[in-house]
């Protein structure tokens, strides 16, 4: 909401707009009330050297087609000559003249300049050139009675002013009008609040524009007032200036007054030409599906049965209730009698129509937040007062129609406020007797005695319905800065859960292994999962920003592959990345099967590198899984990948990404990959390792090499070695896997086996026995010692 300080001063003395201190104090007061000042703009600066002048005569020049010679009188009796390209001027018009030496807002200085050898002694100015608005279609014409030679700012009543841009929160419907803001800030600053007191009363004979409300749940009150003696013309300059400052274009006196009343009193309203209003009355009803209307903004809009229409008495739509009028019912220059609509519409319905149709207006945003359902009489009189300034013969007719539905909320709503509860919630030390002083000035009327008081809620604060709402008002006007500061004692102790601690540990292990954390977009394009070789069932966003980000990931893999491709494209090969994040596979239930996943991708590395990461993780965090190469996870390299199997459940996958998947992501390196269901992995917290004594006796090493067929997993050979070695085994290390070209289909696996006894030195006989044991265990697998 844009607030012009001089305008706000109509309702209280808030200080001098040219005083920095006054501006700062008003700004601070607004912010301290929750009316955050987003910006403060100096306005009403005028251009020195531009004065009022009368056009004496105009002459065209035979050699100049686009400009004419204008002779002006700036009140000093000297006739000045200027060249001018505008065609909206004629003799005796009063215009702004920029005299020689004037520096215009765009930086140009007016100099004596010749066209066809004839000098120009100044420049006539458009509104835009003077910073008075957007209009550059012609010279800014001034009222005919304007004295000559005056600075144009004086002639137009322009004075230096300040424009506040106030961020009005949703709980302050009243602050969409000047009066609401003034009431709040006057109470805060202890300044007398002077709301407008309109005096205009019905005097004319009874004339009515009847109203029929057929949708009472959406329109609880609709008043219509017949006003005659209207002469459509321009508004007074002061009113035009204020509207312009508020960002509204002056149109004519009727529309301008309508807008002014809305800005001042937060009562949107609409004036219809009664002579063209079909049947001379109104019907308020829901639209029929597909019914349409060309609205004021020139759009032909189609409505549904959830939209509210204002129709004339012949049931022809003339406006969208609370949002926008129809194009055909606009006030015209020949209008003399208007039917003035002031109504109250239900908040939610307006919001839905706005959302559905995309129509937004100054009126709809006010109705959507809540307008005073009892503000109409004041607003009608104010409308008449202001219009009478330009229409001396204005008459309000008796017979105002005030149609109400059962849904109109009662004028008096009250809540009980307990001072003990006030102090409990806001931590203050207020007495019940402090309440009237804090609340009465903002229209919350306190009555009663004792610790519980009755507070009547203002009709303009529809957001206020309960005790807590009043407590907030008390806190605001008491001052948030006066509430004190204390730190509550926690009942227990703080800390991370075991799960959270172990998650951090996973991250530390990976960082230590040189893997960098990534955080790619969790939203995928519709074809991404398929390109990754993954199942395509996924949760989809029904209202995505772009369709390329409309699928929720079921795996971290695609995002990380994209990140590798991105880095490769910047000549950063061998990227090692991991991500810990949620994936969202579809599932039956209240929510999808969301869980936390860990994925590690190692570009330029082969599957064993991923196995090494997995071993480090299990070594650090405990747990483990069977490496089941018979189950190749989707999208991974068929002969270099395995499912991590923990009991019956798959815990993840390890191996390499399939070459065709890499190609479809534009990745040119091999990519080793490890995927782990972190929810499962972190949940399996191992018992603390128990101490085993270390032997003081010397150990013996036994190096054995086995020839194993390719289809015998090393894991099984290792298991056999362990079994065969028995109780003396303390360490086992696969140090060699040699593929002899002379023995295709096999490879040699070399193990270093360290043996030790807890209570004595081992003898050669002990070692020989271990060797025989291992040999026979291996033989059962069909694996022999290499000769």
């Amino acid at each position: 909401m844009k607030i012009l300080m001089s305008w706000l001063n109509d309702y209280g003395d808030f200080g001098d707009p040219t005083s920095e201190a006054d501006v700062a104090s008003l700004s601070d007061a607004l912010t301290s009330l929750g009316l955050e000042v987003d910006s403060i703009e100096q306005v009403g600066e005028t251009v020195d050297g531009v004065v009022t002048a009368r056009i004496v005569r105009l002459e065209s020049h035979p050699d100049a087609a686009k400009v004419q010679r204008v002779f002006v009188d700036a009140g000093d009796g000297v006739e000045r000559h200027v060249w001018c390209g505008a065609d909206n001027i004629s003799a005796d018009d009063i215009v702004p003249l920029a005299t020689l030496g004037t520096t215009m807002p765009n930086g140009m200085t007016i100099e004596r300049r010749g066209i066809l050898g004839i000098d120009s002694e100044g420049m006539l100015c458009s509104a835009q050139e003077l910073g008075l608005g957007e209009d550059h279609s012609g010279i800014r014409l001034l009222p005919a009675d304007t004295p000559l030679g005056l600075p144009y700012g004086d002639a137009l009543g322009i004075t230096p002013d300040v424009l506040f841009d106030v961020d009005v929160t949703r709980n302050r419907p009243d602050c969409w009008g000047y009066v609401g803001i003034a009431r709040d800030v006057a109470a805060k600053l202890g300044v007398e609040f002077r709301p407008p007191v309109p005096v205009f009363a019905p005097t004319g004979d009874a004339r009515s524009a009847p109203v029929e409300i057929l949708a009472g749940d959406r329109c609880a009150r609709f008043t219509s007032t017949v006003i005659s003696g209207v002469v459509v013309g321009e508004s007074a300059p002061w009113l035009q200036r204020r509207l312009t400052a508020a960002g509204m274009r002056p149109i004519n006196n009727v529309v301008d007054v309508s807008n002014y009343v809305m800005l001042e009193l937060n009562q949107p309203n609409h004036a219809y030409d009664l002579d063209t209003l079909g049947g001379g009355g109104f019907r308020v009803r829901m639209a029929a599906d597909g019914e349409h209307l060309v609205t004021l903004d020139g759009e032909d809009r189609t409505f549904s049965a959830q939209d509210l229409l204002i129709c004339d008495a012949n049931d022809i739509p003339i406006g969208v209730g609370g949002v926008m009028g129809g194009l055909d019912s606009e006030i015209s220059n020949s209008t003399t009698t208007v039917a003035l609509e002031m109504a109250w519409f239900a908040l939610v319905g307006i919001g839905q129509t706005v959302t559905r149709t995309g129509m937004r207006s100054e009126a709809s945003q006010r109705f959507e937040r809540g307008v005073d359902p009892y503000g109409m009489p004041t607003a009608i009189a104010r409308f008449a007062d202001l219009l009478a300034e330009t229409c001396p013969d204005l008459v309000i007719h008796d017979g105002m129609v005030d149609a109400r539905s059962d849904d109109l909320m009662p004028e008096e709503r009250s809540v009980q406020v307990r001072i003990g509860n006030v102090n409990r919630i806001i931590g203050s030390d207020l007495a019940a007797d402090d309440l009237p002083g804090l609340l009465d000035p903002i229209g919350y009327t306190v009555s009663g005695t004792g610790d519980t008081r009755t507070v009547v809620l203002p009709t303009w604060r529809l957001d206020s319905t309960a005790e807590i709402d009043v407590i907030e008002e008390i806190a605001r006007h008491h001052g948030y800065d006066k509430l004190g500061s204390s730190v509550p004692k926690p009942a227990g102790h703080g800390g991370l859960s075991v799960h959270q601690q172990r998650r951090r540990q996973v991250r530390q292990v990976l960082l230590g292994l040189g893997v960098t954390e990534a955080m790619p977009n969790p939203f995928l394009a519709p074809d991404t999962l398929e390109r990754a070789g993954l199942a395509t069932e996924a949760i989809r966003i029904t209202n995505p920003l772009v369709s390329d980000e409309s699928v929720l990931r079921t795996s971290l893999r695609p995002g990380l592959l994209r990140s590798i491709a991105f880095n490769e494209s910047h000549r950063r090969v061998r990227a090692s990345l991991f991500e810990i994040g949620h994936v969202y596979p579809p599932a039956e239930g209240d929510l999808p099967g969301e869980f936390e996943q860990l994925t590690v991708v190692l570009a330029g590395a082969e599957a064993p590198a991923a196995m090494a990461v997995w071993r480090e993780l299990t070594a650090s965090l405990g747990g483990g899984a069977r490496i089941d190469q018979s189950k190749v996870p989707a999208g991974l390299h068929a002969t270099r990948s395995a499912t991590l199997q923990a009991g019956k459940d798959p815990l993840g996958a390890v191996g390499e990404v399939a070459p065709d998947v890499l190609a479809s992501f534009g990745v040119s390196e091999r990519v080793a990959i490890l995927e782990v269901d972190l929810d499962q992995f972190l949940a399996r917290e191992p018992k603390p390792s128990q101490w085993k004594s270390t032997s003081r006796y010397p150990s013996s090493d036994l190096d054995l090499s086995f020839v194993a067929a390719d289809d015998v997993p090393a894991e099984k050979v290792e298991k056999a070695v362990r079994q065969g070695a028995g109780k003396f085994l303390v360490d086992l290390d696969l140090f060699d896997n040699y593929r002899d070209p002379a023995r295709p289909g096999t490879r040699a696996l070399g193990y270093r086996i360290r043996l030790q006894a807890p209570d004595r030195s081992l003898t050669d006989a002990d070692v020989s026995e271990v060797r025989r044991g291992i040999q026979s265990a291996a033989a059962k697998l069909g694996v022999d010692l290499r000769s």
Partner: protein
Amino acid sequence: MISDIISARDAALAHIAEATSPDEVAAMTTRYAGKKGELAGLKKQLGQLESIDDKKAAGAAINEAMAAVDSALAERRDAVATAALSARVESERLDLTEYVAKPTRGHAHLVTQAWERLEDVFVGMGFRVAEGPEIETDWHNFEALNMPIGHPARGEWDTLFVDHVPPGGQAGTTVLRTHTSPVQIRTMLSQAPPIHIIAPGRVFRRDTPDSTHMPVFHQIEGLVVDRDISMADLAGTIDAFTKAFFGQEWNSRLRPSYFPFTEPSAEFDIQRPDGSWIELGGCGMVHPDVLAAGGIDPEEWSGFAFGFGIDRMAIMRHGVADIREMFTDDLRFTEQFS
């Protein structure tokens, strides 16, 4: 005899002085000082002397010679060892600025770094860390937070909806959570007061990315529910956090604002030591309707909640001009930070 002893001693001493390696010293030790060494041989010949005086004199000479040889050997052994060590050390000289193998270490994401620092500060203040799902029910994300269906404030959340339909439920009631506040509800429903939790997490809005906004970003939220918790406790907690996280010279303030799930509501600003203010987040007293939705009697208990962005903490700390940079996974970006 004595002259034999003296000449043997002198020959040994001269030879020992020439030793240049530990091996040579070892060989000479055997040759001159060993049990079968030259002086030991002479000693065996003592018995052949006839006169007691000659025996005594020769014995004394041999003992003196053996002592001299032992001492010379020890001295030479030390000298040779020292020289060998120096030679080795000298031969192993390296230029340490000529490193070859680059140490590789991973880099934690900036958001994670900020997230963990925040967690650590709040844990130190006695908070526990709660988490919740990123896909939420409309009820947890809006309705329980005092935004019933049709509530106008819902429009301000720019919600992304997903096509999941709960059994017996309706389409359009499953959302990507727009804030971490549903975790408040889940915590209250699963745990009796007193409650002291923070809830960091990923949230989503239908926002076009620009230098300060991402549709996917991270928030941290705090919730305290206990008997007689007041706005003074909220102000004090915010201030304690401000000082712990940013520094003792930093201050904080609350000013009125509006959120549907708190009342009274406030924005909280923090003040740099130079006096300038930064808007940080939103907070307020938990609305009685929200406590009730969480199964907590608002007449018996009261509470406050606060929340702010994690990503912004990372950006502020490292001077990142464009938030989008943090989510490209560009190693040239990531590796700038430890």
